[in-house]
C-alpha cells in the first residue's frame, strides 16, 4: 500500500511468462486503458499489435529533417560559392551544383541520423535519471526473468482497487502499488 506522504505512480503486475503477458496486454488494450506499458527481458513478437500501438512517427520526422537538411545545405553551398565568396575553380561556373552534391548528401544523412537517434530518445521520454518503477523490489528482475505490466495513475480510467482486481482477473501472479517518492 502507498506510504503516507507519497503519490502513487501506478500499479505493477507480474506475469508468469510471454504467453500470459501477451494475452494480458491485449485485454488491457481492449478494456480501454491508455497509459500502460509491458516490460520483458527480451522483445516479444506480436506485442505491438497486442497493445494496439500505432506506428511510430519517427519515419516522417526523419524524412522532414532530411528534406530540411538537403535544402539548407544546398542553400549554404550556393550562398558561400556564389554570393559571399565567389571564386572560379578550375574554370567551372560559380553555381556548379555537381560539386555541391557530396556535402548536401552528407548533411542530409547526418541530420537524418541525428533526428533518428535523438527523436527516438525523446519519443521514449529519455534520457532520465530515474524511474518510479525502480522503487519496486520485484521489478529489479525485469531484465533477467520477470514479465511485468505497469499501469499508470495518470490513466483516465485509473482506480487503484478496480485496476488491481482487473489485473488479478487477467492472470497476474502478483500486483503491487508503486509510489513516486
Amino acid at each position, binding site marked *: 500500500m502507498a506510504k503516507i506522504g507519497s503519490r502513487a505512480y501506478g500499479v505493477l503486475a507480474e506475469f508468469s511468462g510471454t504467453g500470459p503477458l501477451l494475452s494480458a496486454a491485449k485485454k488491457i488494450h481492449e478494456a480501454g486503458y491508455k497509459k500502460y506499458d509491458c516490460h520483458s527481458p527480451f522483445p516479444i513478437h506480436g506485442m505491438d499489435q497486442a497493445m494496439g500501438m500505432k*506506428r511510430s512517427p519517427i*519515419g516522417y520526422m526523419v524524412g522532414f529533417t532530411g528534406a530540411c537538411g538537403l535544402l539548407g545545405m544546398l542553400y549554404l553551398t550556393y550562398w558561400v560559392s556564389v554570393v559571399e565568396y565567389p571564386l572560379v575553380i*578550375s*574554370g*567551372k561556373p560559380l553555381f556548379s551544383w*555537381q*560539386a555541391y*552534391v*557530396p556535402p548536401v548528401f552528407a548533411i542530409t544523412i547526418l541530420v537524418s541520423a541525428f533526428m533518428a537517434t535523438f527523436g527516438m530518445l525523446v519519443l521514449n521520454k529519455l534520457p532520465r535519471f530515474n524511474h518510479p518503477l525502480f522503487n519496486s523490489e520485484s521489478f529489479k528482475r525485469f531484465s533477467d526473468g520477470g514479465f511485468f505490466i505497469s499501469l499508470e495513475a495518470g490513466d483516465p480510467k485509473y482506480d487503484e482497487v478496480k485496476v488491481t482486481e482487473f489485473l488479478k482477473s487477467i492472470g497476474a501472479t502478483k500486483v503491487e502499488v508503486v509510489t513516486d517518492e
Partner: protein
Amino acid sequence: MQIDLKTYRLTDPGKLGMIALVVGILGLLVSILGFTSDRTQFFYSYLVAFVFWTSIGLGGLFFTMLHHLADAKWSMVLRRISESVMSTLPLMGLFAIPLLFGIHDLYHSSHADVMATDELLKAKEPFLNQAFFIIRTVGYFVIWSLLTFFLFRNSVKQDSVHSDKLTAQWRRVSAPGMILFAVTSTFAAFDWLMSLDPHWYSTIYGVYMFTGGFLAAISFIILSASYQRRQGILKEEITIEHYHDLGKLLFGFLVFWAYMAFSQYFLIWYANIPEETVWFLDRWENAWKSLSLLMIFGHFAFPFLALLTRGAKRSVVWLSVMSCWILFMRWVDIYWLAMPTLHEHGPQFSWIDLSTMCGIGGIFIWYCWRKYTSHPVLPVNDPGLKESLEFVNN
C-alpha cells in the same frame, strides 16, 4: 492456372508460356527481316535487347547466390522464381552467337585499318582484339551456366532428398561464385557496351551495369509473383510482407544505381579531361539531352519519390506498376549507353529495336516460365520454408 497444394506443382501452367513463345518467334522472324534491310541497325538493336535480358538473368543469379550466402529465410518463397530467372543464362549464351557475327558492325576497334593508324587503340590491342573478345564472351557464359546448372540442380534435388549437405554445398559454391560473378559481369559490361567507344573508359561501368541489372531482376521477380497472385496462385505463400521486402530492395538499389551513375559522372566532370568528358558530351548534346534528363528524373527522382513511403512498398498494384516503369527505364538506360555511337545526332527509334526486344524477351519469358512450372513452385523440403511463410516485417 491451377496448383496442387500438396506438392506445390502447377497442374495447369496457363497460356503465358505459349503466348511468350509465339511473340518470341514472331519477334525473331521480324528481326531477321531487319537484318536483311539494315544490318548495322539490327546489330545495335540486337545488342541492346541481348544486354537487357542477360542482365535480368544475371540479377537472378545474384539474387539466388546472395540468398544462399546470407542464409536468408524471408526470400525462400521467392527462391524458385529467382532460380528460374537465372536458369535463362545458358539460353542467353545461345543468343550471344549472332552477336559474334556482328563484331565488325558494332565495334570500331575490330577494323584492322583503324587499329593500324590509331596509336591509343594500338596500345589497347592486347585486350581489344576479336579472338580475345570471343574467348571472353564464351568464358562468361560457361562460368554463368556452370553456376546456374549447379545451383538449380541442387535446389531441385532438395525436393526429393532430405539432406543438409545440399545447403552446405550451394553455400560453398556461392561464395567463390559471387567473386566470379563480380569479375565476369564487370568485364562483360566492358566488352559488350563500353568498348563500343574504344577510346573511352570508366572503371565503375561494371558496377553501374550490375546495379541496373539487379533492379531489373527485382522488378521481374515482383511482376512474376504478382502475375501469379492475380491468377490466384501462391496468394497465401507470397504475402504482402515479402512484397514489402522486395520493395525495400527495389528502393535501395534505385538509390544505389543513382549513386553509381552520379559517381561515374562526377569524377569525369571534376577532372574535365576531354578524352573522358566526350562520352557525356555525346549524350548531352542535341536530342540525346532529353534522354539524359529522362534518366535523371525517370530512373531516379520519380521512382525514388514514388517508392519512398511504407504504403507504396506494401501495395502490390503500385509495386507492379513501378516495376514495369523501372524495366522500361532499364531499357532506356541501355539504349542510352549503346546507341549514341550509332546515331550521333539524336535517338532514332527503329522497329528493329522493338522486334529484337520482343524476340529475345519472348523466348526468355517462355524458357523462364517453363523452368518454373516444371518443378514445385516452392522449395518444399527446405527447412527454412516455414520461417519464410511466417515472415513479418516489424
